[in-house]
């Protein structure tokens, strides 16, 4: 089955330009982790700061464009992986090893239509 792993973290710890030591260290961890995943990883990337986000909202069919992310919360969507594994237990095992700050979350979602 194919799953999307959605990584939520408090992006402030990485600094606005993602060039802080914490950001560099995390990036190196993700590179190593991706290598370890090998063929299990179909795709994946970090995302730029949520200040770079633009959101299109639809209300009663009318679309408006907004600056900023969809959800204002302490943790933001910080990156994703797309993986191919046998079942949820395998996905959980992969998701557990995603490099993550002290406080954060990885949401595991099966793809409706696999790639």
């Amino acid at each position, binding site marked *: *089955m194919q*799953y999307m792993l959605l990584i939520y973290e408090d992006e402030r710890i990485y600094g606005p330009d993602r060039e802080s030591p914490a950001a560099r260290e995390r990036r190196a961890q993700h590179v190593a982790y991706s290598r370890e995943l090998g063929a299990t990883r179909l795709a994946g990337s970090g995302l730029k700061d949520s200040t770079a986000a633009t959101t299109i909202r639809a209300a009663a069919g009318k679309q408006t464009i907004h600056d900023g992310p969809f959800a204002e919360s302490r943790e933001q969507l910080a990156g994703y992986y797309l993986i191919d594994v*046998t*079942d*949820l*237990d*395998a*996905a*959980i095992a992969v998701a557990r090893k995603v490099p993550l700050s002290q406080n954060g979350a990885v949401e*595991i979602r*099966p793809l409706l*239509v*696999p790639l």
Partner: protein
Amino acid sequence: MTSAALGLVFREASGRIVAALASRFRDLDLAEDSFADACARALEVWSREGPPRDAAAWLYQTAYRCAVDTWRRRKTEHRFAPELQRNAIEEQAMPAEWTPIPDERLRLIFVCCHPAVAPDARAALTLRLVCGLSTREIARAFLLPEPTLAQRLIRAKRKIAEAGVSFEVPEPEAWPERLDAVLSTIEIAYGRAHEDAAGSGPHFNYAAEMLEITRVLAELLPHEAETWAMAAIVRFAEARRPARVDARGMMIPLADQDPGAWVEPLIADARRCLDRAVVLQPRAPRVLQASIHAAWCARRALTDPPPWSRILTLYDELLKVRDDCIVRLNRAVALAEVHGIAAASAAIESLTAPPLDDFLPYHAVRADLLCRAGRYDEARIAYDAALALVATSAERLWLERQRAALTE
């Protein structure tokens, strides 16, 4: 065969057959529906031709055939549905008539108690699929409207199917977490049965299921101390059931129960389970809990002094491995008997009330201690708080008597 006898056959066969089909076809709904179809066929055929020699095997064969038919039909209907292709099951010969039903109940228990399943649905799903209880019976046991519970079951089954929950028993390295989820689920399910001291309510009929399920779990995972401990706990507790209420239906506290009324063979069985657990891991939380039950069940007669100091020692041990409000509360009860009211009151008052506010035993224990300390007005308030939460008539009668005694 009477319809009651048929019901019993269906229920006894249900867990094994649904488990076998679910792990073969990796589809809970298909397994349940096929079993239901087989039961309907049985009613029709058995009334005409009489029941077969091995009713369970007949039901399994029929249910298996129904499942294969449904599965083939779905395959042609959704030829290109990707998830069906992914799950493509190799066609296999029908099980021969002498084939025993494979026991896949352990797998099914792990599926129902997967951490990805909502905690409030795990116990209900286990009772439904592994124990074969009806939605109505479970709804009554959990004091929920039937549609609410049915909805919860549907949501849980859909989650299992869509999230790709595995139908495998997890790898041993995942057991500490996964097995604990299973045992906690059984604790919740059994808690419902145990609360009903008189055994007259809707929970009673599954106390027997809990004896069975804990036995199965212990036999299937014989190297885990806590599975044996869980089996011991349920047995000790069930053994005391005949002594838990008096002739008027009022609850009798453990220390006042007549050990002569306890079920000796069940206690012996419990002790065998506990012995196995102790050899494996004597300090595991559930092993210590079972040891506390064992200490009580070692009492031979009401004239023997209650084993309070042994109980307190065990609670001290338990506190080292499981420090929570409930353990502290139970320890305080023993503390009162061994070291006096003041020590127990201090232990109770140090507990933070909010998480315990809705916990009846907290108010009942507090009320008793306040009463024994001569603080009758406060005791009355605590009894009122307990009475506001009481769910069974046996407990209500007892609390009302205690409260009435305050004014004398």
